């Protein structure tokens, strides 16, 4: 019969419409919005009805591997001073596809040898394409991809070239946003150091 296909299709629309309310009733009293459990259920493969996220009141949790604009890691010493992990070897600047990383390396005025810590470090975040290659190939785990994606600002000419000060974040922050990666890397580092120490003994 002509029109049956249309009616069947409208049935699907009605199902979607009703599904939303069924879920609302099921979550009555627990709050279907503005809490983490509800958000996870609504976004997961068992969800029914609407998926809308009430941004910015609700934010989707980002997975550990999520990558957005690199940052530099520094160790916090016990005396309160900071030690950059970066040795200004320049691999990130070489591997960067849009070439948005500039590193200033300086030489020791007395010995003339390069100072390991970079004098300054710039990333033009307008050019950065968030590919994550810098973090992937850094041999010192000194540059990592951030989770902070809310970077809007009023003036791109003033604020969008990040310098070393703006880019640097403590290792503890990294351990917090990427716990699994952090643990794995620390373990690898410990193993390497142990092997080195063993070799030295010999």
């Amino acid at each position, binding site marked *: 019969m002509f029109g049956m296909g249309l009616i069947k299709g409208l049935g*699907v629309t009605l199902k979607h419409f009703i599904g939303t309310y069924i879920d609302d009733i099921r979550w009555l009293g627990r709050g279907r919005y503005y809490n983490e459990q509800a958000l996870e259920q609504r976004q997961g*493969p068992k969800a029914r009805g609407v998926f809308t996220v009430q941004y910015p009141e609700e934010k989707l949790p980002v997975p550990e591997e999520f990558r957005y604009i690199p940052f530099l890691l520094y160790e916090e010493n016990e005396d309160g001073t900071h030690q950059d992990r970066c040795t200004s070897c320049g691999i990130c*600047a070489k591997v960067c*596809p849009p070439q948005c990383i500039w*590193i200033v390396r300086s030489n020791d005025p007395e010995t003339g040898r390069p100072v390991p810590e970079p004098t300054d470090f710039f990333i033009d975040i307008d050019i950065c394409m968030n590919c994550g290659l810098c973090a992937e190939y850094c041999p010192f785990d000194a540059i990592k991809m951030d989770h902070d994606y809310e970077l809007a600002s009023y003036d791109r000419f003033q604020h969008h070239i990040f310098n070393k000060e703006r880019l640097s974040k403590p290792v503890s922050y990294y351990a917090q946003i990427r716990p699994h990666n952090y643990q794995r890397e620390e373990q690898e580092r410990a193993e390497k150091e142990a092997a080195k120490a063993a070799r030295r003994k010999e």
Partner: protein
Amino acid sequence: MTEETKTKAEDPIVARFKDQVSMDDRQAYEGYLVKPENLIEFARTLKEELGYDYLSSVTGVDYLPDEKLEVVYHAYRTSGGPAAVFKVQVPRAEPVVPSLVPIYPGADFQEREAWDLLGIRFTGHPDLRRILLWEGFEGHPLRKDWREAYFEEERKPFKNRWPEGNVYRVEDKKAFGKNVSYPDEFTPEGWVPEGEQSLYAALEASEQIRSGNGNGREDELGEEVVVNLGPQHPSTHGVFRMVVTLDGETITSLKPVMGYLHRNHEKIGERNTFLMNMPFTDRLDYICSMSNNFGYALAVEKLMGIQPPERAEYIRIIMAELTRIVNHLWAIGFLLNDLGAFFTPALYVINERELILDVFEAVSGSRMMCNYFRFGGLARDLSDDALQKIKEIVNNRLPAKVDELDVYLTGNEIVRTRGEGVGVLTAEQAIDYSAAGPVLRASGVAYDVRKADPYSIYDRFDFDVAVRPNGDVYDRYLVRIDEIRQSLRIVQQAVRDIPGGEYQTGKPQYQVRVPAGESYGRVENPKGELGYYVVSDGKPNPWRYHVRAPSFINLTGMEQMCIGQKIADVVAILGSIDIVLGETDR
């Protein structure tokens, strides 16, 4: 037994053409070298007698040190099997090659592209105009001695990034003036767009070829009207323009105009190192970044002679097939948008797409710009959590949702009347115009690279090639639904059988060694055959990097599909081809 496995002397094609054709015996090159004067005859024999009916790719390479330009053709049989590669070399000072459009109409846009970007003139081409760039453009940018406006150095990494780190903004450099050059006697202020006139002339010429008489206009009752659809039009899926001639409401000729999003991906690719190109491929067809990565990784791995480990192959296939599901859901949703069902169907399918994008984000770190493949493996392993999530989606959720979509749309009378018999491309036409992917298969040609010339480990999976006979908008929709089901089958098998082990061969390297040579890596992208033609000269950067973009080449048959249709159907036909402008314009 193919031509490749025989020795040079007994190669039937070389034997037949004697001193007109020779094998390309450069190190790690393949195929035949044909003289320009024999090209037409050679191509005709290849097509009509040897059965290479499908011209996949036409492109050019600038061999500056040899003062030569080379045109490279890849032809296939639609019954399957490896390529017949043939090349024509012409002097750089006078690059003239006979056009293959009379034999393979699918060469049309690709030859125009080679003219536009490399300045190779194709004699006998019916409409040789620039295609991606505008006519006030000076030079042919893919020539090796051409330099772009913000030229820094021949190849990355640029020297001022490290160790001095002289930071600057591109805007601070002079944007105009010395950075931009125009042809002689060209003043931007006094410019009259001649390109428009040649475009309209081409439109008229194409109509005359079709109607077969020189003055069709006088015979008509009413006057014909030229209508521009786009470039700013919500239903063109981006900045894409179509110029149509109308007789009343009926289309008599149509020319697509593109290049508004052109950024010369290939030139950027030649400045980049091999690895740097990987994230750039994400941005071609930005709906399917995973399978874009796949094609490029295959091409370079072929040159390097490495194989990814077993686990990586499985993960690659899972990701590529999930991408196909994502793409087809998106295409169906937006086809319905074009038909007038404003966003309800689109949002229902986007719901499902979001679940897959969540997986991509957990695996690769980004929802759309995945950048997940590496030469010889992957960027990182697939976690158990993510695998569990994929299992849940492909085993429990999506099959029911696809059935629901089927009930929702397939029988719908509006979809059927708008789709059936609209935008028909017959099987012969589809092959001639080098259409690929769902467009080709909806015309009854069971050609799928995954079956015809299997790559990776596709030969281990049990799936069918989705084919529909009618070649209209409705069949293209149905093929996509079928392909989603087939992709689900493949992913279900892959997540069941996935082995443990390494996900990368060797140590990850940022400077890969790619031996000199050429390779063509092709995959069945959701939109059609995606090919990467890569030439390496042993340096860290590719000498030539070309993308055979399915959304670009599928548009070659657009005019054929639209002739005789109503203007209101153009949007539906375009939606059924499913183009992405990031890939069309590159």
